[in-house]
């Protein structure tokens, strides 16, 4: 939504949850399910090899990124096509990642337990001289950061906790004038006491995008 607001020609939305992908498609994005396809290959092909401006909107919560895996295996900075999917890695990921069973993923570029999976995809996909943006949250140490790849492609990185109040007035004005409608991402409204149920269906992604909780 924000990228289109700023005049983006095309927006690719990369995820594997059908409900989230469907919502971004409604908002005008071209969706890529990384369970089935390699996002790097697709985006490169679609942009005639140029790549795109990359935004990491997921951070450490991405599949296989979980904090418990950070110091463990995986995490190589290379493309990692096949060969990295050892069974110990598998178990490790499954223990830390409830509801994230990826044993049947067909995308050969997908690598379990790699805390830099998204970062590496972005390094490979980012247009040369562009800036990679990381509003998604990262908390702990991340080893084997793909510094060489970034250097070779003249990529900049910008990241951090969002300075919410910096943007509030500007965005309020865009809402007020009808240029944006953020209510489009609401899928459910519930009472505050129904929050546990809401969290449960959010975890299972039962056609849930955003739930509004109403106190009384």
């Amino acid at each position, binding site marked *: *939504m*924000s*990228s289109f607001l*700023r005049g*983006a*020609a095309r*927006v*690719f*939305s*990369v*995820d594997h949850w059908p409900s*989230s992908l469907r919502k*971004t498609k409604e908002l005008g*994005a071209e*969706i890529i399910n990384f369970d089935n396809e390699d*996002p790097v290959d697709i*985006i490169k092909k*679609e*942009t005639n090899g*140029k790549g*795109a*401006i*990359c*935004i*990491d*909107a997921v951070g450490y919560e991405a599949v296989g990124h979980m904090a418990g895996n950070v110091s463990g295996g995986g995490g190589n900075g290379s493309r990692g096509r096949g060969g990295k999917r050892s069974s110990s890695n598998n178990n490790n990921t499954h223990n830390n990642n409830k509801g994230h069973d990826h044993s049947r993923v067909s995308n050969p570029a997908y690598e379990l337990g790699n805390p830099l999976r*998204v970062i590496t*995809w*972005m390094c490979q*996909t980012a*247009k040369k001289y*562009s*800036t990679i*943006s990381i*509003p*998604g949250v990262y908390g702990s140490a991340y080893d084997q950061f793909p510094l060489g790849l970034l250097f070779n492609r003249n990529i900049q990185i*910008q*990241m*951090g*906790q*969002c*300075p*919410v109040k*910096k*943007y*509030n*007035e500007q*965005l*309020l004005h865009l*809402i*007020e004038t009808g240029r*944006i409608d*953020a*209510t489009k991402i*609401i899928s459910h409204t519930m009472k*505050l006491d129904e929050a546990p149920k809401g969290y449960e269906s959010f975890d299972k992604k039962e056609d849930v995008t955003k739930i*509004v*909780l109403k*106190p*009384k």
Partner: protein
Amino acid sequence: MWSQCDRSNPKGDLGAAYGYTQLLGGYDGGQAEYVRVPFANAEATLKVPDSIKTNEQVLFLSDILPTGYFGADIANVQPGDDVAVFGA
């Protein structure tokens, strides 16, 4: 200083945020009947105009809308760019 405020979070280097662990100040979150607003005089400065009819229209100004826009802003997205967002 917004998210890097040096005064609101006595427990760490980052600025404070609601419901974001001890690291960001240990302030309770907003999924509640009532919310305590520390530094309300500085915090509650945004006036929602009367033309906004529902809470839902401005609800996401509290976090996710600015965060999405911030993502596009720091990426310096320009008219005509192709953008790839990881995480739908």
